């Protein structure tokens, strides 16, 4: 099987879906790049190069460079979606959601319900999040909790190249608005990815390690860290299950509860401040649905209740580390 990067996997899913379905269009800031300039038009392919090569292939009608106007980008994508296109809008950094949140949560997410089931909004918002790039407080957040709490939105957090391609393909074919939250620290991670198109269903957790001593649930960029922690623990004879729900909405509650039935111990790793986080959400699930199975308090490994700091040592201390995950698991034993 070909080994490609997370970045390339996303690019491949976009290319294949655009080739398959003429209704699929891309829009966003510099998704082509160079519009109106004196050099190569369309050669940039996004600030992270994720959409590289798509403009030359599909042209300016389908790879649409926009002004820096996020409300209009997302709103127009929602409007095009509800009228028959299948737009993939790029919100460069998820932090910029503040500029356009109304178009997401009051508009796109609510069309179907408010209109009594009459609307269909096959919109994908591709965006990236996460700390580690020394990008400062307004370019390093994750914000999946804010999105996950919105009824009507689906929220995807791919943690590997394989998942990225399969989940994005699913997202583009989905008839509901989906926020596809890429982890910028994973773009260069490589893995096996089939050449042909495939879908990974939403709401189905991936089991990356299987053990009976404890369950770690992790999302996005925290998944490789949870796996690293599990492998360290295995050397000490502690066998843990690592679950990646892959989508925070819908959430595969069953997989989490089933695993908890077996292990009785739960650690949730969430790159987000602790209050109203996915960690808190899943702890609530465990306590309300599996209280009898729990043999220890649920371990929550999150960021502190602070913005993301710039200084490298502070930023490293901000993000959940492998050591903190190991420690949290040991505390449950």
């Amino acid at each position: 099987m070909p080994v490609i990067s997370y970045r390339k996997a996303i690019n491949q899913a976009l290319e294949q879906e655009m080739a398959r379905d003429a209704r699929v269009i891309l829009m966003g800031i510099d998704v082509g790049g160079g519009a109106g300039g004196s050099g190569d038009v369309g050669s940039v392919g996004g600030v992270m190069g994720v959409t590289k090569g798509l403009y030359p292939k599909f042209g300016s009608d389908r790879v649409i460079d926009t002004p820096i106007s996020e409300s209009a980008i997302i709103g127009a994508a929602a409007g095009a979606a509800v009228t028959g296109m299948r737009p993939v809008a790029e919100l460069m950094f998820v932090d910029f959601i503040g500029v356009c949140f109304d178009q997401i949560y009051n508009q796109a997410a609510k069309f179907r319900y408010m209109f009594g089931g009459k609307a269909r909004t096959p919109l994908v918002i591709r965006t990236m999040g996460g700390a580690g790039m020394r990008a400062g407080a307004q370019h390093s957040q994750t914000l999946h909790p804010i999105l996950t709490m919105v009824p009507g939105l689906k929220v995807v957090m791919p943690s590997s190249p394989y998942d990225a391609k399969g989940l994005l393909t699913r997202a583009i074919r989905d008839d509901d608005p989906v926020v596809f939250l890429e982890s910028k620290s994973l773009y260069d991670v490589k893995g096996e990815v089939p050449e042909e198109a495939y879908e990974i269903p939403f709401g189905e957790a991936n089991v990356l390690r299987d053990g009976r001593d404890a369950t770690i649930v992790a999302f996005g960029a925290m998944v490789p860290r949870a796996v690293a922690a599990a492998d360290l623990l295995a050397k000490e004879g502690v066998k843990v299950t690592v679950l990646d729900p892959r989508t925070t909405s819908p959430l595969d509650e069953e997989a989490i509860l089933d695993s908890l039935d077996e292990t009785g111990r739960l650690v949730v790793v969430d790159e987000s401040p602790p209050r109203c986080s996915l960690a808190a959400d899943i702890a609530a699930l465990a306590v309300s649905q599996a209280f009898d199975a729990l043999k220890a308090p649920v371990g929550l490994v999150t960021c502190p209740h602070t913005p993301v700091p710039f200084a490298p040592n502070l930023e490293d201390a901000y993000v959940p580390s492998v050591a903190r995950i190991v420690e949290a698991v040991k505390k449950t034993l």
Partner: protein
Amino acid sequence: MQLNRDELKRAWRTMLTIRAFEERVEKEFADGTIPGFAHVYLGQEASGTGVCFDLTDDDQIGSTHRGHGHCIAKGCEVEGMFLEIMGKAGGICGGKGGSMHIADMDKGMLGANAIVGGSPPIAVGAALTQKLRRTGHVAVAFTGDGASNQGTTLEAMNMAVVLKVPMIFVFENNGYGEFTSAEYSVGAKSLSERAAAFGMPAASVDGGDFFAVHAGMREALEHVRDGNGPYALETRCSRFLGHFVGDPQKYRGSEELAAARTNDPVLRFRDRVSEAALLAIEELNAIETEVRARVDAAAAAARAAALPDLATLETDVYVKY
């Protein structure tokens, strides 16, 4: 409006400090001592310098992701700036902000801003404070051509007119927002005409010429200080480098790239004042030597400085919690 010798020296010192600072940033970035990314202000020195020249510490500015030049022009110390950009203890924001969040309330610098279009509404608020307190001071929002298309900017323009606040919208038009040309992204084509359509006077000046920017700003200040509401000033600049340090710029043709440095505000200032015998070339050179030494020392000190104390990770989230 003729400037006296001291004023000319001050303008030269500011422009050169920006030039030296940004050249050093470029070098430090290549050396890997600056984490994250860096957007430098090379080619736009005359704009920030001319705009801030007649402002006091009590006048406020809101800046952008390309904010180092605005910070220097507004009086931020280069020592604290280098520490901040390198994420070190003692940085102007304790190393918590970084290049895109340098702020100094005492200098009326309300922050560089990593959200395109983040500053204009904040500057409207600062101008509202000035108006309500009848201070006679003003607020300025720096905005790029790209940011001129952001909803927040357009809302801020209308509200500034409606509230008649003492504010100046400065549009630094360097032709590009990231990799997209303003030719393409600005539907109205003219930033100043679009601003005027909001109901405020608007002018467009050569942003490579300190004297043109300064004169434009004088008119703007006269208008807003007289209580007439906001004013818009477009400064047409050249972006010497790419969007960020290291941007290969394939979207700019070779001719355009070659011409990018022809409108060099620093050289133009030097030629103009020395040819008119306003300042001697020796005087200009002496200032340059002094400025470069200070900037280099600041960078070297920042390289050697310690990282912030880990305990600061959780401080300053609130005043009190």
